[in-house]
């Protein structure tokens, strides 16, 4: 067995520079881990000091160890050594903000009771200095009874001294200090202990008594005998009568102790100094000015992921096409070639294509969080989001989802409350993302614009499609918060941290980490689903005579290429416009080329029609009839489930326009004409697409979760298959009902 290295757990309030300290300690030696059943992440790293290796666990930022959910319990369990597969830490390092010392020390006083050596890293002393606050570090260390080390985490200062202190303190016994609770309280703790399993840590018994309705209470009253709940109730009543009611007794005891511990070593100026945060907040949280600046910032975020990211996404798409084309020239037509070019290259491309948006959005979020603006944004938007049962922090994830739900869902990590975070994640795919745009453009272009319609119809229709998401998402969130995600209203109480200059290194790191995580955790799932849908569309790959479609197609395509070359050569010769002989030849050749084109389209059509997915589509036709669709629309919608942008290309093949790029305007226009001409396959001349049918397809796309990437990211962010499955089903049901309503109402209105 290798020698066990000492482990250090790092805890601290949010906004204290905890991440910077963790990075300064462990450098690039980091990995991210999830514990089963929780959605918060813990990072692990290690550092070497004087020949010894130390492990560091970075626990989620928190104000207190009073856990109310499994997510909040992780820090407690890790520090008590109760987390499975995780050794009890040999030392707990707490980081505190020197400019807000008293409140930061609250958590430290709780840590002092865990029976582990403790070190306090005193951060942001420069900011405290600026405010005229002085701290006598040596005196503070004596009063607290644990080493206090001054650091400047974002600049990497004081780290060596901290490592030395860690190496020393780890050898020492745990401090016996910490606030003494009133005797009445301690005797109730003793009494409850007798009802519990032997060996339940005293820390947990205290939590059991203090945290009314907290996680420890729920957990232990479930595990232990029935009388426990009554015992706790009685104990709390006795404490209330004795004048030390929970939970107030804890805060009073701790803050009183902190006041004593800081007396003589914490000096504040007689008059509070006005600082930059005061000046900035006067503008940035102003009722009018603050809102204007907020809207400008949001516009910038939105513009960057909607427009700027596109400059980076285009080369990825082009590169994918180029690489696929190059690969196709190396291989003979057949399943392998198709698997590699259409399945794998497409799949990898559709993973990579998200990276620009994720990188940019996360860089923005890191800037907003690190400089302190994120809390202001949440403050400004809270009332609006509260109406849907969410809170202000849901705003940026939902806004980002209008560009793409994948980065939007990842951005929901900023929401601490689990139920609010889940509600945000589950409704984010309803926001109309940019991948829906080609579908809207195709159908609006073909059926809702031109001379038959008022000049404003296209704009209003597109706007209405976006509004569907904006209206339905809050409604669904509202319902979810009252049903599946019901629970006590989460506490909003949010710290507005001091403004500071964001650290470039931290921003680059966050953006890179988010992208890498997406590739590693969601990438494989996306790739797999792309390959499955490829196979369903590819097989069976032979026609009724047993000839391979790909071989037939290849022959025709080669013949056409040859013809095209001949035409080109002829055209080059035809300097004389009056050369009738040549023109006649050219005309004949062009006609043959067009005929070949039609044959190719027919072959592609037959192939898709006969594929497993095509069969399912035809079999499902009765189900899509009430929406006004035939099997071809149904199958195209079905093929778009892994990625909705596939819709345009699939319609192109089924309606024999040939395969094309959904972003290509000319192609979409030609395909639109095909769709206008399309009739029902019953031999009659009844038009397939009417305005209600087009609307019904668009509404379906607006509401349906046709995006494997989104589902993969939901799985990753919720750490469970349950939620992506739920999202998929509720959105499909919503889409079906929505499309049905639009078609039925539209037809009844006489639109048909």
């Amino acid at each position: 067995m290798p020698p066990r290295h000492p482990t250090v757990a790092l805890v601290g309030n949010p906004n204290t520079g905890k991440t910077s300290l963790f990075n300064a300690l462990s450098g690039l030696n980091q990995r991210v881990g999830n514990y089963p059943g929780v959605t918060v992440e813990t990072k692990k790293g290690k550092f070497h000091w004087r020949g010894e290796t130390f492990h560091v666990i970075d626990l989620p930022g928190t104000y207190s160890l009073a856990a109310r959910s499994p997510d909040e319990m992780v820090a407690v369990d890790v520090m008590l050594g109760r987390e499975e597969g995780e050794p009890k830490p040999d030392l707990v390092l707490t980081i505190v903000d020197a400019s807000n010392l008293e409140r930061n020390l609250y958590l430290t006083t709780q840590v002092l009771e865990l029976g582990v050596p403790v070190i306090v890293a005193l951060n942001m002393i420069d900011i405290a200095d600026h405010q005229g606050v002085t701290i006598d570090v040596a005196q503070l260390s004596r009063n607290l009874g644990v080493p206090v080390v001054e650091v400047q985490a974002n600049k990497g200062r004081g780290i060596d001294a901290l490592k030395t202190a860690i190496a020393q303190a780890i050898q020492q016994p745990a401090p016996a200090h910490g606030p003494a609770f009133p005797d009445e309280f301690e005797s109730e703790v003793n009494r409850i202990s007798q009802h519990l399993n032997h060996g339940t840590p005293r820390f947990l018994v205290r939590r059991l008594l203090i945290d009314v309705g907290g996680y420890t209470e729920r957990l232990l009253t479930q595990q232990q005998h029935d009388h426990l709940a009554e015992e706790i109730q009685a104990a709390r009543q006795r404490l209330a009568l004795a004048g030390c009611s929970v939970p107030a007794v804890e805060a009073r005891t701790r803050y009183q102790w902190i006041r004593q511990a800081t007396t003589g070593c914490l000096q504040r100026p007689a008059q509070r100094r006005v600082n930059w945060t005061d000046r900035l907040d006067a503008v940035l949280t102003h009722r009018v000015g603050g809102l204007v600046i907020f809207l400008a910032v949001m516009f910038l975020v939105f513009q960057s992921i909607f427009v700027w990211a596109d400059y980076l996404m285009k080369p990825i798409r082009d590169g994918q096409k180029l690489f696929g084309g190059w690969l196709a020239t190396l291989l003979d037509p057949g399943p392998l070639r198709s698997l590699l070019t259409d399945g794998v290259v497409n799949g990898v491309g559709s993973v990579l294509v998200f990276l620009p948006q994720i990188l940019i959005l996360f860089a923005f979020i890191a800037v907003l969080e690190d400089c302190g603006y994120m809390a202001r944004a949440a403050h400004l938007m809270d009332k609006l989001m509260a109406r849907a049962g969410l809170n202000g922090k849901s705003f940026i994830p939902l806004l980002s989802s209008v560009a793409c739900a994948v980065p939007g869902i990842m951005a929901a990590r900023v929401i601490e409350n689990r139920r609010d975070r889940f509600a945000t994640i589950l409704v984010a795919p309803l926001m109309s993302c940019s991948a829906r745009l080609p579908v809207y453009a195709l159908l609006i272009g073909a059926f809702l614009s031109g001379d038959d319609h008022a000049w404003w119809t296209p704009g209003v229709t597109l706007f209405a499609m976006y509004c569907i998401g904006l209206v339905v998402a809050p409604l669904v969130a509202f319902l979810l918060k009252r049903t599946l995600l019901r629970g006590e209203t989460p506490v909003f109480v949010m710290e507005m941290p001091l403004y500071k200059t964001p650290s470039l290194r931290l921003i680059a790191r966050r953006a890179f980490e988010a992208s890498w995580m997406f590739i590693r955790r969601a990438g494989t799932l996306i790739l797999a689903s792309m390959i499955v849908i490829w196979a369903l569309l590819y097989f069976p790959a032979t026609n009724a005579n047993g000839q391979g479609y790909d071989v037939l197609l290849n022959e025709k395509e080669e013949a056409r290429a040859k013809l095209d070359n001949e035409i080109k050569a002829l055209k080059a010769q035809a300097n004389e416009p009056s050369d009738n002989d040549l023109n006649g030849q050219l005309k004949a050749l062009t006609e043959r080329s067009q005929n070949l084109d039609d044959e190719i389209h027919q072959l592609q059509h037959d192939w898709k029609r006969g594929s497993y997915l095509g069969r399912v589509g035809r079999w499902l036709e009765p189900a899509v009839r009430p929406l006004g669709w035939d099997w071809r629309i149904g199958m195209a919608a079905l093929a778009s489930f892994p990625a909705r942008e596939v819709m345009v290309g699939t319609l192109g093949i089924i309606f024999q326009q040939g395969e094309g790029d959904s972003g290509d305007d000319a192609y979409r226009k030609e395909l639109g004409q095909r769709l206008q001409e399309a009739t029902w396959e019953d031999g009659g001349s009844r038009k397939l697409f009417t305005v209600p049918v087009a609307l019904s397809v668009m509404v379906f796309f607006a509401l349906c979760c046709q995006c494997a990437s989104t589902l993969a990211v939901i799985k990753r962010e919720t750490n469970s298959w349950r939620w992506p499955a739920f999202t998929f089903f509720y959105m499909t049901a919503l889409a079906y009902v929505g499309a049905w309503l639009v078609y039925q109402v539209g037809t009844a209105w006489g639109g048909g």
Partner: protein
Amino acid sequence: MSTLDKLRVGQRGRVQSMHGSDALAQRLYEMGFLEGEEIEVLGFAPLGDPMEIRLRDYRLSLRRNEAARITVAVVC
């Protein structure tokens, strides 16, 4: 005597008492809302809620219905 949510911008109050033993009460205690602490109202969000206050050495945003839990004596 008033509750914190009733204070105007720029007004200060001293915490008299707080009710309840639920998660909200506990969080407020933990954040330092204890008897005798002075609180200053810094402003309200555009829709009138939540409110921004200063407590001890830091700033906090809380909803008015949360602030209504806290009874304060107006200082000025």
